[in-house]
């Protein structure tokens, strides 16, 4: 497939070193989308976002317009922006908060206007120190510029934005845990239903939670119209999306690509994108959408980067992060490291998740360190089945949130795709990859 050259919707300023400054922002059309939005009615702004059919970029891919329609017409007590980005191998929001904080703020104010919100909290992962400083700095400038605060650009609309730092806990990216965290508590996901915080959110009030990248798309959508956005991509996957490419590729990084018009092969091999596998090695497998997603192999390279297209392969585009593993990679070690992550980050509320992740990690480590037994692979699958009955994707959920059911993804992928290699591991009591 030829790689299309769509307009840069969220990365248009990144070629400039000073992309985070107000000066650069204003010189490149910054806050024009907001001015336009304020001249429209909130309903008209919401209609544009609906027409864009913008899917949430936080991982679940729920249409932003539809989420908003649950609470419109406002006013809505709270809008919360999810900048907790901690899904392993996901590093796109990090880029957006550090390199274009004003774009995020502009998007947030547009959303606040459409939803008639007076108070916004932008929750940013605590480890992103520079990102936090950049967003706070930009916010100070935006207040002074009249783009946030009272009577924005003389429109009569007012909104306050508070930047809230997290403190290191992956689970706080889950929206109900994020709300708990924002209330000053431990980040325990809430029992569903309600399925969305729309009904009972922050301080028990209706709340919309949207991702940083979702928000960052709004200035362009308002400036160019929802239809122009929807004209990009295909089917349900409209517009462009940030893909974070990492692992064994020559050019890891974040790429903004038109949805569906690019394949995994393009992303990994095109000279202007991934540039191929490091050291000219062969591709073994890749994670298609964050480590919660089941893996794909070389036979899936021609699958387009679209939400439904990837879902059709029994996995997900998730957070849009692709990790490439070359033929020297030990599949067992990769699955172990991912499982170790879930074990460390499980909040511990649900037994299958808390205990299961620990068991799985131990068994995987036992095999990895050469003390594995023949029956260990079945044991692993059994333990996976306990967490997510059937071990399929999308998973059956017996836990409060989907962290638990995501644990089997890498393990089941490793066993299904590389069973012989894993057995060899057990038999030889050592990694065949050395």
């Amino acid at each position: 497939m030829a790689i299309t050259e769509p307009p840069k919707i969220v990365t248009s300023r990144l070629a400039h070193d000073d992309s985070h400054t107000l000066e650069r922002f204003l010189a490149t059309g910054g806050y024009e989308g907001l001015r336009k939005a304020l001249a429209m009615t909130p309903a008209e702004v919401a209609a544009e976002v609906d027409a864009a059919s913008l899917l949430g970029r936080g991982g679940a891919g729920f249409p932003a317009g539809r989420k908003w329609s649950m609470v419109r017409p406002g006013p809505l007590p709270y809008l919360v922006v999810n900048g907790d980005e901690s899904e392993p191998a996901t590093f796109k929001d990090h880029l957006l908060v550090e390199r274009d904080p004003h774009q995020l703020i502009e998007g947030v104010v547009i959303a606040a206007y459409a939803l008639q919100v007076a108070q916004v909290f932008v929750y940013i992962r605590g480890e992103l120190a520079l990102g936090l400083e950049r967003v706070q700095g930009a916010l100070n400038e935006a207040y002074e510029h009249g783009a946030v605060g009272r009577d924005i650009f003389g429109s009569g609309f007012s909104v306050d934005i508070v930047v809230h730092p997290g403190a290191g806990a992956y689970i706080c990216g889950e929206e109900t845990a994020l709300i708990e965290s924002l209330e000053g508590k431990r980040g325990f996901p809430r029992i569903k239903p309600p399925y969305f915080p729309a009904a009972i959110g922050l301080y028990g009030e209706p709340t919309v939670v949207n991702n940083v990248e979702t928000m960052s798309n709004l200035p362009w959508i308002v400036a160019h119209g929802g239809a122009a956005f929807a004209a990009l991509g295909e089917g349900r996957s409209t517009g462009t999306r940030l893909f974070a490419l990492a692992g064994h590729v020559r050019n890891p990084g974040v790429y903004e690509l038109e949805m569906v018009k690019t394949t995994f092969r393009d992303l990994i091999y095109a000279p202007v994108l991934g540039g191929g596998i490091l050291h000219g090695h062969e591709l073994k497998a890749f994670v298609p959408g964050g480590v919660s997603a089941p893996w794909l192999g070389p036979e899936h390279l021609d699958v387009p980067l679209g939400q439904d297209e990837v879902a059709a392969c029994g996995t997900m585009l998730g957070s849009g992060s692709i990790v490439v593993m070359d033929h020297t990679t030990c599949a067992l070690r990769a699955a172990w490291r991912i499982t170790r992550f879930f074990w460390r980050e499980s909040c511990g509320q649900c037994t299958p998740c808390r205990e299961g992740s620990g068991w799985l990690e131990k068994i995987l480590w036992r095999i990895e360190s050469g003390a594995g037994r023949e029956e260990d692979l079945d044991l692993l699958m059994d333990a996976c089945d306990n967490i997510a009955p059937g071990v399929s994707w999308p998973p059956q959920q017996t836990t409060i949130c989907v962290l638990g059911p995501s644990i089997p993804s890498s393990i089941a992928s490793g066993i299904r795709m590389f069973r012989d290699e894993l057995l060899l591991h057990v038999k030889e009591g050592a990694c065949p990859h050395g």
Partner: protein
Amino acid sequence: MSHLSDDTMDRARQLVELYPHPRSALVPLCHLAQEQDGWLTPEAIAEIAELVGVSPAEVHGTASFYDMLHTEPVGRYVVAVCTNIACMLRGAYELLEHVEQRLGTGVGGTSPDGLFTVEDAECLADCGRAPCVAVNHRFFGDVTAQRFDALVDDLVAGRLDDEVPPHGTLIRVRRHGGLRVGADQVAAERRAMAERAAAAKAAEAAEAEAEAAAAKDAAAEEAAKDAAAAADGADEAHGADEADEADDVRPADGGS
């Protein structure tokens, strides 16, 4: 005498003001306390508890949930070596081994000189530059053993003091515009918005009613004329209502 300095206390009170409920400031206040002391001391925990209106045990319990909040002393520099998947594929564990050797301590430990604490970190969201290391949450990418040694030398010599503040200092940019909208004002704003929305809805309903009435009467020409006049009147009346409403909320709007 409070444990938190006057400056820290000032900032702490401002932070509490930002939220509709004081408890929301708990984590930000813990960050502030770490900025003062490098870690979260029992004295600071007690004062934070008072500021947000919960027990010290609750602050401690909440803080212990979060990896960045340290209830034990740590070095001036906390060195987080990411070993998650993308970094592991690019040699993170080999790097971690080197880091431990160079600093003379294992994961979770602090170097003999008390300067460096080593952590085996989960993904730092910087995988494009794997393997990566964060020192006090300031990122360094594409780290080799050699580059790590140079980084340590620079830190010890103070050459990176601007980029890497001592552990605990997270956000050096202070909020200076935001307090213009205090919690009371936000509440007033929200009320005003609700009133505006209700007024708009009422106006819409009245309009629809008038339209319906107009449609009903359309058969009788004489009556239709009357209805149109009535509808005009209704529109005008609601326009006036809205203006009144807007006047009511102005004190809140102009409160800054």
